[in-house]
């Protein structure tokens, strides 16, 4: 420990120089970075964007944040955003970055946060203000389309389901009608059979048996008719939902603040502070490593107490260094 401290005080200027160099490089790097412009959009969402799996444990904005975050981790979504952004802004990235670069940039540079239970904040920083705004707009639009698409898909699946159910119920109803008609001797007049059954319910034993059978058939027919009517009603509701979902604005989704082209660049205070603190930390760590390496590599004798311990020889004196 004493050697360590002694070495520290001996080479303190070197260690300070290491810290200063790393700090300078770090701040220099931060300063040399191009100014960036940040475009911000705020989107209002409600629980309907969760579809039929709504949960009370998370807020709508958290769900939206998670959904958008997941989408931004997909290559296809990022490439769509890039294409739309390029079309909208007319600004092409320098050097025509490949798909991987686009994906890397977009998946890491977007910042998502929740501003409350229903509001998601989407922000994107870029060296070109128009591209920043266009990219943010593209993300908001594509997210809207995704929500809309999800809702439409859900409604379409519901319509298809009810269509099948209605068809099945109608077939059952037709079969029940056929059974009544057969029972009445192939007249096919169900309403006449109904009137006949009603007028003969108080007849003899043979007529009573016939009436009971007919009544059973009619009860089944009524139940199937009611089920068919209910399903038709639900099918109508599902078709209504599908029509709503196929409109341009999704249910439970609204852009509150459209992204605008930023006029002022993002403040450099925060990056500079981060670079300063990071540079100091990295410099201190590097200095510590240098100090450890220097101390470890020094196998000379420095202190009187080390002589006997290291050599087993008698120390008779020390002569200080004179300037």
């Amino acid at each position, binding site marked *: 420990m*004493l050697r360590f401290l*002694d070495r520290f005080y001996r080479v303190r200027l070197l260690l300070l120089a290491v810290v200063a160099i790393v700090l300078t490089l770090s701040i220099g790097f931060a300063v040399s970075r191009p100014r960036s412009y940040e475009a911000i959009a705020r989107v209002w969402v409600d629980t309907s964007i969760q579809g039929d799996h709504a949960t009370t444990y998370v807020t709508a904005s958290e769900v939206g944040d998670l959904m958008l975050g997941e989408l931004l981790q997909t290559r296809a979504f990022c490439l769509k955003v890039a294409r739309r952004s390029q079309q909208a802004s007319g600004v092409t990235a320098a050097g025509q970055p490949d798909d991987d670069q686009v994906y890397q940039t977009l998946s890491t540079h977007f910042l998502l946060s929740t501003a409350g239970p229903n509001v998601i904040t989407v922000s994107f920083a870029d060296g070109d203000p128009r591209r920043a705004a266009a990219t943010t707009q593209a993300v908001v639009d594509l997210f809207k389309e995704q929500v809309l698409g999800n809702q439409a898909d859900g409604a379409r699946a519901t319509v298809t389901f009810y269509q099948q159910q209605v068809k099945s119920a109608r077939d059952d109803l037709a079969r029940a009608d056929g059974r009544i008609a057969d029972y009445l001797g192939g007249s096919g007049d169900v309403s006449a059979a109904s009137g006949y059954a009603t007028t003969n319910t108080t007849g003899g034993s043979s007529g009573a048996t016939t009436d009971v059978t007919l009544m059973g058939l009619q009860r089944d027919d009524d139940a199937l008719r009611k089920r068919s009517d209910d399903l038709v009603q639900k099918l109508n509701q599902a078709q209504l939902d599908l029509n709503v979902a196929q409109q341009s604005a999704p249910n439970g989704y609204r852009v509150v603040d459209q992204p605008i082209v930023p006029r002022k660049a993002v403040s450099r205070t925060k990056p500079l502070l981060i670079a300063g603190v990071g540079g100091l930390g990295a410099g201190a760590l590097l200095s510590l490593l240098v100090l450890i390496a220097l101390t470890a590599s020094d196998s*000379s*004798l420095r202190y*009187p*107490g080390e002589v006997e311990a290291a050599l087993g*020889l008698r120390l*008779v004196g020390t002569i*200080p260094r004179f300037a």
Partner: protein
Amino acid sequence: MAAEGRSIRKAARSVPRDPAAVPRVMAQLPALPPELIEACRFASLQLGGPRLASLGVTSSVRGEGRSTLVRALAHIQSEDYERSVVLVDLDLERPSLGGWLGANGCPGMAELAEGRVAVDDALQQLGGGIALVTAGSSFGPVARTMAAILRSEVLTALGERFDVVIADLPPLLGSGLGRAPAGAFTDLLLVVRSGVTPLGRIREATAHLPVPPAVVLNGTRSHLPPWLRRLAGC
């Protein structure tokens, strides 16, 4: 060779014990820093103080401060104990003591060992009761000259003539002659430059010495601030 040794011993004994009778080369030694003298005083006491008779000062490698320490120890023996001191430069490969003290390089130990001069001719008085025998210049290989010095009685003769013999020995490593003269002295002092000489080199140097040397740590300097030194007790 035995006859040569006897002639040298005879020559040495023929010199009077009065150091003042030795020819004086310099009126005064170049001054050493008082702090250095003070630091060496403790080391001198640890080595025997007034009872010190024969001391070889060596180091692991060159540049550790042997010659400075030799001078300081000689000064202390002369000033503090009023003893007659002879400095002997046995670093035959790279002699420096004579030049540093402003003495003549020849004749010296090489000439004495080869029987070319008498002891009186090789001794140079530096003042303050301190005499010097430089390394001299040998005709043949220095290893042979060193062997001749060790075989001869020159060092014994000088020991009989002066109260204390202090020799500047060659470094133990980097020179083939390092360990050979170490056995000729009753006390051996190893100078270690603080913070410079690697421990492995020191161990290697002291591994096969005939006498375990005492150690002087030269050039110690703590960079700790005073308050931390007080706290650490160093």
